[in-house]
């Protein structure tokens, strides 16, 4: 999976939570919780959805690495590469 594909998947899942947010205008380095006004339940649902779609275990301790779109893309790309 390329970085662009991962990013697209993340954007889809974020849009499921916040349908009105225009992903094209979202700063990929912004804190998603602030930029999209999502709460801890939304974030947990986002992690759950990504976990199911990619089969990647995302421990809670790693949440801070997934708090921006750039960070989440990088984290998942690394995890997918490790998984092989």
């Amino acid at each position: 999976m390329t970085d662009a594909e991962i990013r697209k998947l993340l954007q889809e899942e974020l849009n499921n939570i916040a349908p009105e947010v225009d992903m094209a205008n979202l700063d990929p380095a912004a804190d998603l919780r602030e930029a999209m006004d999502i709460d801890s339940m939304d974030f947990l649902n986002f992690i759950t959805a990504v976990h199911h779609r990619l089969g990647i275990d995302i421990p809670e301790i790693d949440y801070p690495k997934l708090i921006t779109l750039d960070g989440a893309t990088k984290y998942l790309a690394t995890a997918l590469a490790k998984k092989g």
Partner: protein
Amino acid sequence: MVDFRMPSLGADMEAGTLIEWLVKPGDIVKRGDIVAVVETQKGAIEIETFQPGQIEQILVGLNSKVPVGTPLARIRAEGEAPAAPPPAAPPAPPAAAPPPVAVPPPIMPAPPTAIPTAPPLVAPAAVPARPRISPAARRLAETRGIDLRALSGSGPGGAIVYADVALALAKPAAPTAAPERKRAPALDLDAMRVAIAAAMARSKREIPHYYLSHQVDVTPCEHWLAAKNAYLPPDNRLLMGALTIKATALAARRFPAFNGFYRDGKLETSKAVHLGVAIAIRGGGLASPALHDTDQLPLDELMNRMRDLVARTRAGRIRSSELADATLTVSSLGERGVEALYGIIYPPQVAIVGFGKVVARPWVVDGAIGPRSILTMTLSADHRVSDGHGGALFLAEIGKLLEDPDKL
């Protein structure tokens, strides 16, 4: 024979519009079954029946707006003989439910109280009929983000059935399907704002609130959650909100003056603890449906139910019992925002507990100052039924329970 009536889903509700029947004459219903969907200011609400039996007759057609208390259907209790032979209808094939629009106009009782503005009954014929959609089709469409308006139905009378939605899902997404996804049509945020305004204005007019606040060190809760969640897949992970809600429910059981209703000039305490969970809705809405028997739920079950409740509320699918039953409300700011929140009581309840954002603060533990995670809790309570002394004990009890999450 028992009438199934338009329920009152809050002190501010005068009428509701019937938008979906999930049963037809002859169907057997159990207590708690969802039999109809009614549109109110708070969104589309799934209405449950408390009377088990067999649906004898549907009295109100789709898209009819009727006052609270209007009989919507007749239910024959188990063992009861049919009152009269049903109108000589040919034995309808079970799949093709007779369109409820064909039923005689509903009998209109006077509104239960003198409501001068009770809206007139909308004649079913005057409203363009909505396409009939089976509940299964509606659910599938909602979870997968399919626009039902774009589908044509293959069911009886053109009804959209599960297979139609499944077919739409199987098709590759057409480029026209890309534009922004719409919010569930069930949620009308303007109407919801009107309902919030009415309830909150009434509360501030009638209820003499008093306010207390208390800070607790929730570092043990954070450690406990981190240790527990480390071994759980995301589906089963717990949030701090589950702990604060459970602690509030347990404390409410011990302090009944904060769990119940103010009616007819006095406190009616509730044996059951159904915490209303204030849920923010994107775009500026708020609803606080009840989490039934909160005090009885183990934490993992409580968390599952909370996730389900939040998802359904945000999709505009609250159940009637969830709207009417809350005995005490909890409002939590979660991870963001500010340290403290002072709620306004949702009448006829008598208290609301608020939780702010957890913040890192210098704190004295065992005689030494160190960084700890501090949560500010507040209580707004009705001074007609309780006093600051009791309120303080109640709030302190919630704090004590949070010191030992193992016992929650």
